[in-house]
């Protein structure tokens, strides 16, 4: 009896995943636990293990497909086993409601080519002089039978087409009109464009034909993680009234603590960043107004400090969350942050460790940044940027000038909720905590 493998649900809020790579293909022998595929959610990537021993009898989606959770993605069984009974490529949704890229790839017997549904067209199937949509992507429109035939016969389906038929249905005339107006590509340019190369509006060939050399570098498919980052940052700037206050704290004590910690192998891994975050958590305990979320006109202050920290990974920015950080000792905090950062870097971090933060810290100090403008992570109302440590002249009580080690702090807050004075006061509390680090860290 064959076993179907479903797209797992990888977090409470995950509805669909990007199938990034097949590691096993049709006909491959697998053992239970072998990794079949890599999938990616908005937040992280995961591996799909084989649930049973056997042969991969068939796969139902191409790499790059966005697949709803609990949808069958492949089937494993004995060699030669028929898969008709088990073949259920996902809950069969109505065409209109399903994004094109979530449709199962047609099996060999199915006549309907994938590219006509907006997927990346087969290069070899594209005739000379056909037009390629200027922006590759997936279409969603429902097509009339004649439009489908036109699309199939011309290997043509633009990513965006306005249907003039009933209910926005795309009819043949809509496709014909676009077919004649989109830029004309040479066959070689068309082959590259279908793989994502960026098509300019005008070409250098005869009569303005777009030639291969005119194309921009192949546009890399941005990962689901990057898309999510882009959306969130745009939303952040669009939905809040952000402003940033810059200050600094005497870092002499911080450096002394760090030196002391370094001498003990148990605590040698604790960084300046860890220390500043530890101080920030303490400051948030005294100024709960900044440990809050504002959404839909409702402000929610939290007593638990779920501290989110920005983490640079190969996949882009990730923001793991240390839950109930106020309960952790400095060493525990440092250890937890390191664990989460490693998981984020490896792409194995769970979605639930990437959500639920109440306040965010972004540390660019280690890269020598003296001051920056952290972008809020809504619905949070504040984010603290940690800057580098540098020398700063200060006037001593005796009137002489001395240079001290000083660490910069950049606090961005949402003016909708936090006015300047309370924000400045909070920054002062953080500064106080940092300057008193030797006392608090020895306790």
């Amino acid at each position, binding site marked *: 009896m064959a076993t179907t493998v479903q797209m797992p649900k990888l977090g409470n809020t995950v509805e669909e995943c990007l199938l990034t790579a097949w590691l096993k293909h049709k006909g491959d022998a697998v053992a239970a636990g072998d990794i079949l595929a890599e999938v990616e959610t908005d937040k992280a990537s995961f591996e799909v293990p084989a649930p049973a021993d056997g042969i991969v009898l068939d796969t139902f989606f191409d790499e790059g497909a966005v697949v709803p959770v609990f949808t069958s993605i492949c089937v494993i069984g004995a060699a030669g086993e028929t898969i008709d009974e088990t073949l259920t490529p996902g809950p069969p949704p109505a065409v209109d409601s399903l994004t094109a890229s979530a449709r199962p790839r047609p099996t060999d017997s199915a006549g309907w080519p994938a590219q006509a549904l907006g997927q990346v067209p087969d290069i070899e199937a594209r005739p*000379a002089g056909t037009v390629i949509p200027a922006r590759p992507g997936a279409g969603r429109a429902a097509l009339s039978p004649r439009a489908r035939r036109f699309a199939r016969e011309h290997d043509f389906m633009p990513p965006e087409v306005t249907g003039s038929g009933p209910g926005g249905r795309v009819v043949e005339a809509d496709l014909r009109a676009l077919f004649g107006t989109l830029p004309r590509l040479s066959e*070689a340019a068309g082959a590259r464009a279908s793989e994502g190369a960026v098509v300019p509006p005008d070409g250098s060939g005869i009569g303005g034909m777009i030639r291969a050399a005119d194309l921009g570098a192949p546009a890399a498919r941005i990962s689901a993680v990057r898309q999510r980052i882009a959306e969130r940052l745009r939303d952040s700037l669009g939905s809040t009234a952000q402003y940033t206050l810059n200050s600094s704290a005497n870092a002499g004590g911080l450096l002394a603590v760090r030196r002391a910690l370094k001498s003990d192998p148990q605590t040698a891994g604790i960084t300046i960043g860890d220390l500043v975050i530890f101080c920030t958590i303490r400051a948030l305990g005294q100024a709960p107004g900044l440990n809050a979320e504002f959404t839909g006109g409702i402000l929610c202050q939290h007593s638990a400090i779920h501290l989110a920290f920005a983490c640079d990974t190969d996949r882009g920015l990730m923001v793991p969350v240390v839950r109930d950080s106020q309960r952790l000792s400095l060493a525990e905090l440092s250890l937890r942050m390191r664990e989460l950062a490693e998981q984020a870097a490896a792409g194995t971090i769970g979605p639930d460790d990437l959500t639920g933060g109440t306040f965010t810290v972004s540390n660019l100090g280690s890269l020598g940044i003296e001051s920056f403008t952290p972008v809020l992570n809504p619905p949070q109302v504040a984010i603290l940027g940690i800057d580098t440590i540098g020398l700063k002249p200060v006037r001593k009580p005796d009137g002489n000038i001395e240079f001290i080690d000083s660490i910069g702090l950049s606090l961005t807050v949402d003016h909708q909720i936090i006015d300047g004075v309370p924000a400045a006061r909070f920054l002062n509390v953080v500064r106080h905590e940092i300057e008193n680090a030797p006392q608090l860290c020895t306790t």
Partner: protein
Amino acid sequence: MYDLIVIGSGPGGYEAAAHAGRLGKKVALVEEGRIGGTCLNVGCIPAKAFLRSSRLCRELREGACYGIQANPGKLDMVAVVERKNRIVATLARGVDELLADAQVAVINGRARLTGRDQVEVGGERLQAANILIATGSRPAVPAIPGIGSGNVIDSTAAFELTEIPARVAIVGAGYIGLEFATFFTDVGAEVAVFEVLPQVAAGCDRDVGDRLRQSLQRCGVTFHLSCRVLGIDGRQLSYADSSGQRQTCSADLILHATGRMPVVDDLGLERAGVDFSAGGIPITERGRTNVPGIWACGDVTGTHMLAHVATREAVVAVNNMFGKPDRIRYDAIPAVIYTHPEAASVGRTEQELRDAGIGYDRTVVPMGVAGRFLIENEAGSGFLKLLTGARYGEILGVHAVADLSSEFIVAAAALIEAELCVRHAAEIVFPHPTVAEALGEALRRAQQGRQS
């Protein structure tokens, strides 16, 4: 005040002037020598006229192969030169008429730029909104002691030869040297070619160069490759051979054909602020120099040194001058060497593709696949090499060594220009029987190779 002053009347200059004139512009064309430039007077056209006569010499000798018993005729070089002059004169009249029809003012004299929009000719200053420099090139004189001796000539002087010497030494195995090697050997001279590089026809696909050398060797040409000419003393040419040994060669005539140099001196380019070097005037794909309003085309740019490139660059420059955006694409420029056998190429060579790290497939067909080739070339052989992109099957280069390949290489150029891939190019119907069918066969084989 002219809309355009063109300096130089070669295939770049006269086409530019005529094109601008037809657009209704006020145009002056300044030429210090004969209308038509190098190509028409002392280059492409005379060379091909000479080669037609030498081919007939060869064909008469080979007549028996075709069932014709003929006496190997007697070469009359005076008549050959006269015929060449008649052809040149006919074509020059055609250019004169072209310029007259386009109402171009032809000014005889030497032009110098005296500013961004000013040209001085014979003491007279002419103003123009645009200046196109199309001064072409001249034979490069190699730095060889004795190069100025009486029996040393360049290609220009060779077109006035009224006698064929018994032994000819040619310095340089580029296309000019090779074409003269074919000419002299076909008319019965003993020919030795000296080349500093290890191969002939540098810049061509390596297989093309090798096959050309082999073919010419079979016709009797001696090649001294990787050798350095040390000096010329009367009829003695001394050279260091590939192992560095000093050798001598006796020749009744020594032709130097070591390339051509852009004519950039004494043009007032510095005064007008035009960037240039001994290697030429750099231009953009739209024909612009660094100075707005000053344009250049053809050999003076120092790049392709091909008449047909000059012509296209000229038209591109004029179009851009007068508001019609245009640009030249250099990836589909055909080039022909009119040796026996001819070599014709377009696109990239295997060496260029390897250097650029481009994955490619190579399909080589012997010319014997085309019946017409066998019919036309009883004793000949040749090949056609098709280079296609490994991933998409686009046509990257076509290189042929075969007589008549000059006449169909443009088909390959069109395929590259249109960026057709083999899958569809293989659907093109070739007339039968033609030599060009070798290209059709190569396309079919390349497509079969992709399917298998």
